[in-house]
């Protein structure tokens, strides 16, 4: 799904424009998001990768407006969901959207469910919140949902407390919960990080299957490049609160353009011969509370030049307009090559 496909703009289930968010703290503010541009179209699976602290979760939470309103400031930008400006909705309107139009799955299936409420009840509560059906109907629906999750004995699981279930099972419950009201968009914040690879695979497959069946789009947040390359059509790479690269997964994986993405991929053991030294990115992630006014990757970049002291924009490459990069050097280079 690309920008230049005019007329499709209304089909963005999620579109974040130049979002800047900061958290006021002692002496200043943590600038968690510094101009994020991100779009998800109906039915597609989009990856969002980046290092820890790069703002992935803040981005996701902003999409649901789940951060307590007194702890952050939006300094610019907008978030639209299916055309509605999320930042302008009232709390009540927002509540109606959450769960029904857009859902979310979290990293720790261990703690994401209420430990003292039976899982069946937790799902029913959500269904009843958004749909005016009887409790018995809701229960029926819940059991059907659980069955859809390939849970062998839904009745037992329905009557279980979360602690009685394994991690994979709990994550399936979360998925059931997420799809209970057939949302248009599902934000999955590192849904498999806490799981074993074998279980991770099942959970991801399940997610994809459900999304395909219901037509929901998924924004999959992860820091596992391999997962992205296996499951996502498009990917956004974040660094220090901004998207630095975005494009079709295969393009980004095969031909990363931004120096950060390149460094990231080169650091994966998968990508080198065993035993040989891995490529590393020198330096450290900048302190978001004292962000320099320049390309945030500049201090770690091997290719930095004078121009990097200006903040780069995320712009499509001339050679491949579906591939966007926020780097002066790469943009100039690409322009030169294209000419």
């Amino acid at each position: 799904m690309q920008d230049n496909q005019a007329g499709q703009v209304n089909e963005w289930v999620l579109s974040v424009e130049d979002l800047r968010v900061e958290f006021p703290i002692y002496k200043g503010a943590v600038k968690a998001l510094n101009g994020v541009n991100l779009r998800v179209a109906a039915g597609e699976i989009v990856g969002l990768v980046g290092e820890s602290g790069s703002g992935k979760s803040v981005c996701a939470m902003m999409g649901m407006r789940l951060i307590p309103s007194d702890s952050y400031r939006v300094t610019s930008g907008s978030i639209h969901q299916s055309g509605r400006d999320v930042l302008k909705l009232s709390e009540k309107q927002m509540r109606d959207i959450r769960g029904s139009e857009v859902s979310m799955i979290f990293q720790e299936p261990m703690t994401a469910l209420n430990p003292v409420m039976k899982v069946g009840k937790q799902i029913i509560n959500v269904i009843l919140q958004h749909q005016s059906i009887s409790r018995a109907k809701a229960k029926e629906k819940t059991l059907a949902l659980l069955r859809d999750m390939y849970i062998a004995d839904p009745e037992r699981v329905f009557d279980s407390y979360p602690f009685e279930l394994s991690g994979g099972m709990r994550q399936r419950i979360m998925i059931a919960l997420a799809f209970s009201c057939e949302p248009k968009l599902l934000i999955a914040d590192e849904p498999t990080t806490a799981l074993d690879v074998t279980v991770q695979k099942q959970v991801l497959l399940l997610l994809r299957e459900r999304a395909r069946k219901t037509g929901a789009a998924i924004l999959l947040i992860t820091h596992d490049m391999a997962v992205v390359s296996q499951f996502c059509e498009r990917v956004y790479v974040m660094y220090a609160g901004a998207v630095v690269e975005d494009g079709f997964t295969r393009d980004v994986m095969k031909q990363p353009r931004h120096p950060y993405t390149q460094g990231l991929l080169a650091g994966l053991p998968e990508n080198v011969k065993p035993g040989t030294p891995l490529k590393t990115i020198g330096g450290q992630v900048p302190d978001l509370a004292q962000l320099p006014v320049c390309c945030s990757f500049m201090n770690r970049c091997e290719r930095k030049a004078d121009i990097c002291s200006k903040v780069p924009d995320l712009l499509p490459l001339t050679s491949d307009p579906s591939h966007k990069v926020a780097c002066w050097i790469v943009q100039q280079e690409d322009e030169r090559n294209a000419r």
Partner: protein
Amino acid sequence: MVAGLKHRGSYFWYQLRRSPMTMVGLGIIIFMCLAALLAPVLAPYNPDVINLRARLQPPSMAHWFGTDEVGRDIFSRVLYGGQQSIGVGLFVAFVASFIGTIIGCFSGIFGKWVDTTIMRIMDVMLSVPSLVLTMALAAALGPSLFNAMLAITLVRVPYYVRLARGQTLGIREMVYVKAAQTFGASRHHIVQWHVIRNALPPIIVQTTLDIGNAILMAAALGFIGLGAQQPTAEWGAMVSAGRNFLIDQWWYSTFPGLAILITAIGFNLLGDGVRDMLDPKQKVK
């Protein structure tokens, strides 16, 4: 991570300032402590000198808080009483937490039968009605403020033992203690290096909260007549002595009572604040 780590001190102040309640608490404590310490300077009268012919005078310019039933100046006695009451609070909280922490850490780290024995004894001490135990102890030791203090201290110790033991058990399971064990660390080393340091913050909070508590307990003992001896001024004993005059000579009980209330509030607010500050969850990440 906290910005400007070099300014740990100023960060502390920042947190303090952000919590007005804590500032109020700190202010109260400083005020009350100063008043008590400066009593010899501030007090307009000798607190012990009686004047039977000026008994039970209402508050006036001469006697701000009025006089008691033998004509002593209540304002002066409240000032001097602070030395006793706050002193008791500090003594009890610190001694009890010191002893309790040592026993608790020891118990937690030693485990096995030592732990079982100690905890059983503490269970028993906790289930003896504390007021009865304090009263009986104070009566057995002979009534004096110091003995009341000892009695309250003894009764408070099990709470700290429990707390410190709980902390120790938690810390004992921490990975860094496991690591120390792989280096062949002795129990002594683990307690000294890891347990004490890490168990301390919640104990400090508890201690701060307990100061107010101890002042109240001393006051309660004073109320039953087991605390400070005449002519020493002590708030609880003053409230108690003024009790029979409460209806018509309201000032007698009211002012020392207010002093107890305000001081206890001060320590409780400070304790709450310190707890919030030491709670890692509340820190800016």
